[in-house]
């Protein structure tokens, strides 16, 4: 498989603030690649560097094996993007806006092609409306249309679900899957919501404070073999004594007031619950997360 994006130790500082710090990751052609991180983790800055909007302080970005700093012109012909919120010329219609983008890409679209594009993003019938009358969700859809107008091989989407209603999120997810599976597009999908990435992506990187925290296949990172289980129990002393005398002792990570934290596979959780019921210890609450969810929760909680 060929490499679509290769980011090598890029850094970006604004004055004394280091927004991105020696970040590296690789996206293969055909991937739906999740770019995950809490708000302010450096996602947008990284994507802006990948689109040539911001110049890296250090490091190099290659797209389809070509250096972005040297061959930006030819690379941009193969890349479509929505960076941050989609903004258009509000005093012009959606169709006129798309005509501008088509012309900027040296494309001569027929009316039918425009119709197809509007149909693809679910904006049929609103083509001639001024963009200033559009809702945020409609602008997101139009943003997607402009990203696809030149049939790019790589599509970079920066938090594209923002502002979409539930149906819009489902439509977008289906469209991304369709573009990937039927048209072979490589997609880089940035989000600060783990479940969005879980549902869509095959590979992902998690970044925090401008650094790569973990990178790999989503299914491996979301493995159910090592779950973080939290159980709130009523009788503290009795529960501690029962656990100490059982085979669950090595799996107990810590106790915080009445909250017991275990690390075990997902299959073991029902057995553990049965054990407490047999011991006649009341279970007040149970929740569990995989390693990545636990880690992501920790970094987002640390930030807030």
């Amino acid at each position, binding site marked *: 498989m060929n490499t679509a994006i290769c980011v090598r130790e890029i850094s970006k500082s604004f004055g004394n603030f280091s927004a991105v710090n020696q970040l590296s990751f690789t996206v293969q052609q055909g991937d739906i690649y999740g770019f995950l991180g809490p708000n302010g983790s450096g996602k947008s800055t990284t994507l*802006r560097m990948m689109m040539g909007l911001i110049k890296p302080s250090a490091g190099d970005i290659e797209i389809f094996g070509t250096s972005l700093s040297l061959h930006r012109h030819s690379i941009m012909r193969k890349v479509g993007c929505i960076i941050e919120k989609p*903004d258009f010329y509000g005093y012009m219609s959606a169709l006129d806006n798309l005509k501008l983008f088509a012309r900027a890409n040296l494309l001569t679209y027929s009316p039918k092609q425009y119709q197809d594009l509007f149909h693809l993003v679910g904006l049929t019938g609103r083509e001639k409306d001024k963009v200033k009358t559009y809702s945020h969700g409609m602008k997101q859809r139009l943003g997607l249309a402009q990203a696809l107008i030149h049939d790019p091989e790589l599509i970079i989407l920066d938090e594209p679900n923002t502002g979409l209603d539930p149906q819009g999120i489902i439509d977008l997810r289906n469209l991304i899957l369709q573009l990937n599976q039927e048209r072979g597009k490589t997609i880089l999908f940035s989000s600060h919501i783990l479940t969005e990435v879980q549902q869509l992506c095959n590979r992902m990187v998690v970044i925090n404070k401008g650094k790569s925290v973990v990178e790999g296949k989503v299914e491996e990172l979301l493995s159910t073999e090592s779950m973080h289980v939290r159980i709130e129990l009523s009788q503290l002393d009795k529960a501690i004594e029962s656990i100490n005398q059982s085979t669950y002792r090595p799996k107990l990570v810590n106790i915080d007031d009445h909250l017991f934290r275990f690390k075990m596979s997902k299959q073991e959780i029902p057995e553990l619950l049965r054990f407490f019921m047999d011991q006649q210890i009341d279970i007040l609450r149970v929740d569990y997360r995989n390693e990545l969810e636990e880690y992501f929760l920790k970094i987002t909680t640390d930030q807030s």
Partner: protein
Amino acid sequence: MKEFKAILINELIKTMKRPRTYIGFGVITFVCLMLQAAFYKDGKEILSFVTQQFENVFNIEGRVLNGNLICFILLQTLIVQMPLLVALVTGDAVSGETASGTIRFLLTRPASRTKIVLAKWLAGLFYTLLLLIILGIMALVVSRFIFGEGDLMSLNSEGLTVISGDDINWRWGYAFLIAFLSLGVVASLGTFLSCILDNSITPIVSVMAIIIIFTIIGMFDLPSFDVIKPFLFTTHMISWKNLFEDPIPFQDILISIVVLAFHILLFISLSIFYFNRKDIQS
């Protein structure tokens, strides 16, 4: 070249579709019609008051209040206000897109930043040219239609100059060209400030502030100001009036053209230099 042409067409379309563009056209048309109506009603009285002082020296005959004189007055009046109208569009060219976020879409296309800023600058010059064409039609053509043709009697620092009506059309042509060059400096300054700043209003206000400060410096005959005056573009913005003197000071006009052209080159070079290094964070 094909790519540049496409971007330039886009910029022209955006300029012509923006409601703001038509403010300038409306203002010029309104001011011209307003002054023409006022001169049609009270012009003769005002003129007889002005010419009274010369009547002891020589006789004034013929139609003094004519289209050429009205055009001269209108051009003299509006050339002071027109920089604001030019700045209103060019000062917003890049900064307006930065503030609204559309700059991200613009810069994620294959075209280079140099081409984008040049296209915006040319679109600004095109708008400036349109303003002057409208001014030309309203001030010269319409005034001649209302007041008729005749010799131009102009007052300047040297006294009274009379230009024959047969010898005036070429002077108007060059006067409008120099006015275009002068406003071209304002358009280039607007584009430059628009590249530096990230909001729409500040570049527009800054252009006007610079013009006001430079004009004030030009108004006072102080030795310290006299040193810098020849280098200020505002000093040369009124050099079109030299074409209505007799004899015409061609040397002064040429110097003004060089200074204005230098300023245009300087501002557009700075715009390209700065815009190519700018991080788009909006």
